[in-house]
């Protein structure tokens, strides 16, 4: 019934190789885009923006970045928090050094700086793999956070050691700072999410994505069939860090406005993003969205149920949150290693045949 391929003919190669080849899928995608761009900005308020939508959008970018590295290229990284910090501090330095340049360009450049740092810390991946590498990426996490904490140049010698986002406008509308309207910050992030998702989707479908997946599935075999592990691994680190850097920059400039690096970009952040892609689905762009949405909504949901409805103290609810997240990770790894994305794929498969499944 839904997702019917019958009568859906492709007459050109571009048509055949587009992202959503099934018509229903394509229309749904256009509808979601239109809804996100044209409807939500008019009904959004501060609570929704700050509690759910902004963190969801920003974590989605980080999750897409980590998914490229871990899900597509198979290199587990626990340094996401550190790379987000690089993006945030690069954005801050650029914003304060070149106030006349548009913040849009700053965020992109911050991603670029993070990509360079990512390549640097990706170099060991050429020699070591598996959890040796996972542990090695922790070096990035601890070193980078320490660096931003201890070297005053990075926070412009401010007395508190914090970085604060100065007010910046896009097309005359404020997007950073506490007085920025919710719809403007939302749209600003949404633009980045859309660009990043389309970019990532097309990268992973192309030559470079295939070489990543070859490395992931079996690096020795990949090398033998002519995939260059050096360029494949380092490009994965670069592009992944680029996305993660953008998300760090947005997290600092748009969402929080002020950042204490040890508080915000600590190792818990790295784990959070890793959990997002495990729950959402390793090696899936949709999974990054689903995982980010799930782990952003879960604490809010628990707070509403536990604190507001049942009247429990917040610390007990926080403990339950740990237990539930941990149990969910284990459950997903056991029952559905491909995460929410796989559940969605199965649903689609069912819908395709429904109501005549045989």
């Amino acid at each position, binding site marked *: 019934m839904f997702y019917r391929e019958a009568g859906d003919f492709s007459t050109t190669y571009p048509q055949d190789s587009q992202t959503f080849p099934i018509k229903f899928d394509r229309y749904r995608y256009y509808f979601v885009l239109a809804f996100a761009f044209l409807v939500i900005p008019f009904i959004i308020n501060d609570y929704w923006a700050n509690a759910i939508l902004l963190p969801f959008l920003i974590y989605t970018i980080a999750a897409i970045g980590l998914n490229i590295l871990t899900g597509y290229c198979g290199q*587990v990284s626990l340094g996401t928090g550190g790379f987000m910090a690089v993006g945030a501090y690069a954005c801050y330095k650029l914003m304060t050094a070149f106030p006349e340049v548009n913040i849009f360009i700053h965020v992109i450049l911050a991603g670029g700086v993070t990509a360079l740092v990512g390549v640097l810390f990706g*170099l*060991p991946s050429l*020699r*070591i793999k*598996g*959890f*040796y590498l*996972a*542990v*090695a990426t*922790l*070096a990035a996490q*601890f*070193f980078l*956070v*320490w660096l931003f*904490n*201890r*070297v005053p140049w990075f926070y412009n010698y401010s007395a508190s050691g914090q970085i604060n986002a100065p007010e910046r406008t896009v097309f005359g509308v404020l997007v950073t700072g506490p007085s920025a309207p919710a719809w403007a910050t939302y749209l600003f992030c949404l633009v980045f999410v859309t660009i990043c998702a389309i970019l990532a989707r097309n990268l992973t479908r192309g030559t470079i994505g295939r070489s990543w997946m070859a490395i992931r599935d*079996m690096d*020795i*075999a990949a090398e033998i069939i002519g995939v260059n592990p050096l360029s494949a691994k380092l490009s994965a680190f670069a592009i992944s860090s680029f996305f993660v850097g953008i998300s760090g920059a947005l997290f600092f400039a748009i969402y929080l406005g002020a950042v204490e690096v040890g508080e915000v970009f600590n*190792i818990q952040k790295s*784990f959070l993003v*890793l*959990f997002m892609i*495990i729950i959402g689905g390793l090696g899936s762009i949709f999974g990054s969205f689903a995982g980010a949405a799930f782990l952003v909504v879960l604490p809010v949901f628990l707070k509403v149920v536990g604190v507001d409805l049942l009247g*429990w*103290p917040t*610390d*007990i609810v*926080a*403990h*339950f*949150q*740990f*237990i*539930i*997240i*941990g*149990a*969910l*990770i*284990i459950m997903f*790894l*056991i029952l559905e*290693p491909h995460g929410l994305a796989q559940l969605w794929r199965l649903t689609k498969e069912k819908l395709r045949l429904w109501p005549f499944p045989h």
Partner: protein
Amino acid sequence: MPEQLIFAMEVTLNGLMAGVLYALVALGFVLIYKASGIFNYAQGVMALFAAMTLVGIMDGQVPFSHLINAIFGAHITHFGWHVPALVAIVLTMAVMVFLAWAVQRFVMRHLVNQEPIILFMATIGLAYFLEGFSDLMWGSEIKTLDVGLPQGLNVWIDEKTYNIFGYGFFIDNLDIVATVIAALLVIALVAFSQYTKEGRAMRAVADDHQAALSVGISLNFIWVMVWSVAGFVALVAGIMWGAKSGVQFSLSLIALKALPVLMLGGFTSIPGAIVGGLIIGVGEKLFDFLIGPLVGGATENWFAYVLALIFLVFRPQGLFGEKIIERV
């Protein structure tokens, strides 16, 4: 003798002592890794859980009292008795064995034959679960752990060194005790794995699961045993660190300290864990002492990792690890 050199010697000695504690945690990792190929990230949280359970049993705390109070509006906290340290340690060990059984039954059994990295991520999930669970069970406030270990300045060393160098070294008694216990633990573990039937079975499982199964070794039993031993090591580490700096959340972060030790020493080697622990312990203390003031201090957080990282680039299997051979 120049003063700086004497200070450096003291720092080195303290580093050696800290290194022993790192090695203690790292041992727990090595044991599980050797026997089941699982890299157990939850080892640090297990130490926290063990220490919290020990304190809870000793003080007669009611488990889940916060939750019970929140649901039923009661105000219970303690049973009102005190359990002697030794009995409490035995009871805690029983809890750790139960935990080992639960982990094997509900998590690891379902993940047999998965890739190592999946198992690693499962143990991260386990760490989260256990962290929330132990806080829920015993409350998240900082507790003091006192099982009667000697603490404070060792007067004998202070006097001896004062007579020789004219400057008394500050060495904590607790560190000395920890060193002795760690040494005993290592000897016991090596003897266990070399000379007992169960130890041999454990090594057989580590070597080849299927071959071990075919000669009649029960995988389930061995894994429960391995996790229990790891729980025991976690308990010892938890007591040491808990006595040193109080039982609190940061205790679980010692796992992060142990990781570079493992990378340096090799994941599969018990001597490697000890040598690695000592190198990291001395290295980070000396680095912080010599270079730290030049770059703003607090280098201990990352020095171990960067050292291990640089080291790995040249020797990917660690100091004592088995050479990694890949077959297609």
